């Protein structure tokens, strides 16, 4: 006890924690208030709202999985070069040269789990009617985050540059060629002509813009890498901030009025 006291009485400890052990209302409030991460939470919540059987903790799980993806993803970026020449071999080296290496496994299974947890979070929010006023806007932010999660997973699918990757992305991105008007095999595209020159072709349509080429190739790999590691995570990060903030502003976890 004296040892504990000698630690908690030091200047270093006191510079970190501005409150005593949180076993009384005042310090319980301070524990949440004086911590930048914990202050996402309010000081008090509805008893019904902290029940696991009510929330399934799915939103929290999704956020946690996003953090797992970020950390493992950064580690993977150290050893991965997004070029046709190196991509596959770098992944293979990770597999063969790292004893008990599980970073790629954590990243991949975490990504699958995140897709599922987003769906389940949405299911819970729907079944408890938590999208109803005043939370309409936050439901919309959530839908966009769901789309971004799927896009993150989809762009990441290409990066190992194996048969599984390239053909899954080919099948997926082939849909874009059928986009009405702006896909070269979509209805209405053939009406966009200047004289005899078609404006929407395999080299100018929305699919070309997406995969940066007529087929999934080197440019696609780089493009998906940048989208996967920088652009979409940044967008998702901003929207997550909005999402969490709005949960607080709209009255915290939903409950009967």
């Amino acid at each position: 006890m004296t040892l504990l006291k000698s630690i908690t009485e030091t200047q270093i400890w006191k510079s970190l924690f501005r409150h005593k052990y949180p076993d009384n209302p005042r310090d319980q409030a301070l524990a949440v208030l004086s911590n930048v991460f914990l202050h996402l939470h309010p000081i008090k919540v509805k008893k019904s709202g902290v029940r696991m059987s009510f929330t399934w903790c799915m939103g929290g799980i999704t956020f946690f999985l996003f953090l797992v993806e970020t950390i493992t993803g950064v580690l993977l970026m150290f050893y991965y070069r997004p070029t046709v020449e190196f991509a596959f071999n770098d992944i293979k080296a990770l597999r063969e040269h790292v004893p008990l290496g599980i970073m790629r496994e954590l990243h991949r299974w975490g990504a699958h789990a995140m897709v599922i947890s987003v769906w389940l979070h949405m299911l819970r929010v729907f079944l408890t009617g938590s999208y109803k006023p005043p939370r309409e806007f936050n439901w919309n932010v959530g839908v966009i985050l769901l789309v971004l999660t799927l896009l993150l997973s989809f762009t990441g699918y290409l990066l190992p540059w194996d048969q599984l990757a390239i053909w899954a992305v080919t099948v997926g991105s082939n849909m874009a060629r059928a986009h009405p008007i702006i896909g070269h095999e979509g209805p209405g595209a053939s009406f966009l002509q200047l004289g005899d020159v078609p404006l929407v072709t395999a080299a100018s349509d929305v699919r070309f813009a997406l995969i940066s080429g007529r087929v999934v190739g080197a440019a696609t790999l780089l493009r998906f890498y940048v989208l996967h590691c920088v652009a979409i995570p940044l967008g998702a990060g901003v929207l997550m901030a909005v999402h969490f903030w709005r949960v607080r502003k709209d009255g915290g976890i939903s409950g009967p009025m």
Partner: protein
Amino acid sequence: MPEQIKDLVDWLLGPKIYFLLSVVGFWAMIQFRAFWTQAWVAGGIFVFGVVFFALSMGDRDFTLIVAKPDNVPISIMFVSIGFLLWLSFRKMVINDRLIAKGLPTFEARESRRRVFCWPDLVYSEFLCLIILSVLLLVWALYLKAPLEEPASSARTPNPSKAPWYFLGLQEMLVYYDPWLAGVVFPLQIITGLMAIPFIDINPKGNGYYTFKERPFAIVTYLFGFIVLWATLIVLGTFLRGPNWNFFGPYEFWDPHKVEALNNVNLSEYVYNVLLERALPSNILLRELPGFLAVALYFGALPPVLANFGFRKIYSQLGFIRFNVLANLLLFMAALPIKMLLRWAFNLKYIVAIPEYFFNI
């Protein structure tokens, strides 16, 4: 597991019976919610499922597809959706009984009490984090992430499949062309989801589980999520093999399996069969029946529904909300309708203008 049972399951899980069974199962889930959510029934269903799954793992073809590393999440999704549906339906049944008696719901009784986030919320979040970390680590240690041959644009695998979470959309390609199944329908799903809070103006059921106070919303959403999204993913992943042919769970994926496809367009039905004459050379005249059908479906059905049958809902929602809702519901129903038409009449396209990639 005996071969007869395997053959029976293979036959039962053909695309037609699979989809119809999932609809019937969905109806039963809603209708008999008070029965199946009892602990012993739900437990029995779970044990039966586990035993069936364990016995199936003895089959080579079944194991080959289910134990594929990238397919493992689908089994996890299947089990977690089942468990969470049980949990939420149980709560709905209990709350609905309380409401019927005029008592406050389970959540209403507890929401008046406030608790400190530290420790009540922070601890359960921390516990959740630890459990999930352990599960992820075990999963990662036990199962290697897949890595196939290096990418080659010259060798197309058969079947070529999108990532598993898009396989419901890929399954729709059987019935609709890519511009609908791959572009319009996904966009409609996203906009439809975003429109939900603005269409559903029922103030009840906000912040607690209830079925009886909002049956329409729950049935519609769950039909979309369970029947049209989740079960089609299972179908697309486990039951579609080479050439996107259907294979039962215990069937060998034979790339030479031949399936007769003699589907007929609506225009051919009307002109060749009904009027007994050749197709007109004018495209618009040729596809007139299809255009009329689509126009009636999207244009005439909403006002008809607003005046008959859905009168009360129309008066509650108003013109704009009702039409948005009707449009979204008609899009949602378009898939099962086309499925039924395909199975019953071998109908290929309602409007078929391949010259301009405009097939519906």
